[in-house]
């Protein structure tokens, strides 16, 4: 099977997943509503009591974290989408057809990138409305968005592997959501790690979510980049290394899971 046909099949499959968004927009609404709700709840309800180390406006601090958290919750969408396919048997049809077997995975990941762009755009607008700004010019803003998309790509891999392992959309939901909230809470998304108890602060600083969050803050000139710890000082590096490591580790697992469906 040539690379050309694999790309063509992946594109058809990406089109399929995007058509799902058009035909069942309620799912996307949930994925839009959740981060916007976080902006409002943390930005206005809890935010009045939140301090940003080194000063600065809390909502400027918050928005980059919500960008990252939104990417993170995407694992749920990816995992559910894959599990639904496996559950309904439509994957059996794909597997009995002379198409590239990679297309299901590459198509899903490509569609996730498009979804991520939509979600980010909605959040940029929300952020601007509540007082968030990028202060260091458009090229650095684009670099920040590229880091977000890279993170989403890695999390797509995780979602695909999870969906393949769970094979059932409900199982995916029961795995992802109880994990997603503590993982985003024990990071620098809502609260600066230096305000947490010692060990929790360390976990929070090394959390992959924190790396991208700090990097986005840095690239947008937002406050709260943090103390002089190693992960905080090398956030840009970590924001690239973490996702690439995830792709290298989880990507093959996802592919192998898919190949082993019939064994």
């Amino acid at each position, binding site marked *: *099977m040539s690379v050309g*046909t694999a790309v*063509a*099949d992946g594109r*058809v*499959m990406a*089109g*399929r997943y995007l*058509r*799902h968004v058009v*035909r*069942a927009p309620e799912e996307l609404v949930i994925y839009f509503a959740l981060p916007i709700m976080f902006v409002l709840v943390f930005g206005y309800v809890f935010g009045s009591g939140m301090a940003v180390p080194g000063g600065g406006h809390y909502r400027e601090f918050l928005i980059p974290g919500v960008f990252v958290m939104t990417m993170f919750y995407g694992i749920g969408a990816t995992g559910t989408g894959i599990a*639904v396919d496996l559950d*309904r*048997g*439509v*994957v*059996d*049809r*794909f*597997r*009995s*057809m*002379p*198409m590239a077997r990679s*297309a299901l995975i590459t198509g899903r990941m490509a569609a996730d990138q498009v979804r991520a762009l939509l979600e980010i755009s909605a959040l940029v607008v929300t952020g601007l409305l509540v007082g968030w700004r990028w202060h260091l010019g458009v090229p650095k803003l684009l670099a920040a968005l590229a880091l977000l998309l890279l993170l989403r790509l890695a999390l797509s891999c995780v979602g695909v592997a999870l969906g393949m392992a769970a094979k059932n959309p409900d199982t995916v939901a029961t795995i992802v959501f109880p994990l997603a909230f503590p993982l985003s809470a024990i990071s620098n998304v809502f609260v600066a790690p230096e305000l947490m108890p010692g060990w929790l602060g360390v976990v929070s600083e090394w959390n992959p979510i924190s790396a991208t969050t700090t990097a986005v803050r840095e690239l947008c000139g937002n406050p709260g980049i943090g103390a002089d710890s190693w992960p905080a000082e090398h956030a840009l590096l970590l924001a690239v290394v973490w996702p690439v490591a995830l792709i290298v580790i989880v990507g093959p697992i996802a592919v192998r899971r898919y190949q082993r469906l*019939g*064994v």
Partner: protein
Amino acid sequence: MTSTIVAEGLHQRYRGGAVALDGFDLNVPEGIVHGLLGPNGAGKTTAVRVLATLLGFGTGRAEVAGADVRRDPASVRERIALTGQYAAVDDLLSGRQNLVLFGRLHRMRAREAGRRADELLERFDLTGAAGRSAKTYSGGMRRRLDLAASLIRRPRVLFLDEPTTGLDPRSRNQVWQAVRGLVAEGTTVLLTTQYLEEADQLAGRISVMDAGRVVAEGTPDELKSALGADRLEVVIREAGRLGDAAAVVGRVARSEPDVDPDLRRLRVPVTDRVGALTAVLHELQAAGITVADIGVHRPTLDEAFLHLTGRVEVTA
């Protein structure tokens, strides 16, 4: 006649270690419907999934449409289509979008895929529902859409895994009609079913499966006669004359009849259906015995099936 589906000594275990296929053999010539009949858990679906390249297998050899299943699954996939027990369609997409998607994955251009989708929607009576999500379809419509998806490129071999399970009679007839049409165009069909009537209706040959292997094979008629001869059944009016009737029937059929006193019924195997029937009727009337009912019965495929798989002792 060339063989389109060949399986020799296939062995396959479930993940837990239980044996799913235990020396499964099959030889299906081109252009017929071959029925794979058996109770739940006999291994029918496993056999189909192995032949359709969805499932690996342990030992043995399999060839479908001229390609080796293990060594060249890609060529097998070029030549087959599969319609499973559960409609393998995309629930969120509309019926038409489903068919266009599968057409595109068959490397059709967008326009060609659209045209083919419209043809198939028309043929399967789905044009009116073409724009609706597949999840809003009834069971019969989904199955028809699933079958249509299998026919986007006319396959050389079509695997139908219990295609009418849970369908209403009208949808079932539509599926049967479509299958007959395909075979007329030269497609070979391997049909698994638990419904003996379905196998009887569609299949030119039947393999009966039990515990992962084929336990009997033949035409539906051969399988029925494998059970034994036709049976003559007589019910008489007066219970008091059962003994006399048994003597008459025994003499004509040259075999001791089974007597059921409660039903006042006598049963005896016969070889000459019409001759035996007229002779028994004549002799009983001559002996002054009133006949309430008389007939010759061929064993049903159900009986043949139960007999072959040994699930129930059939006493005939």
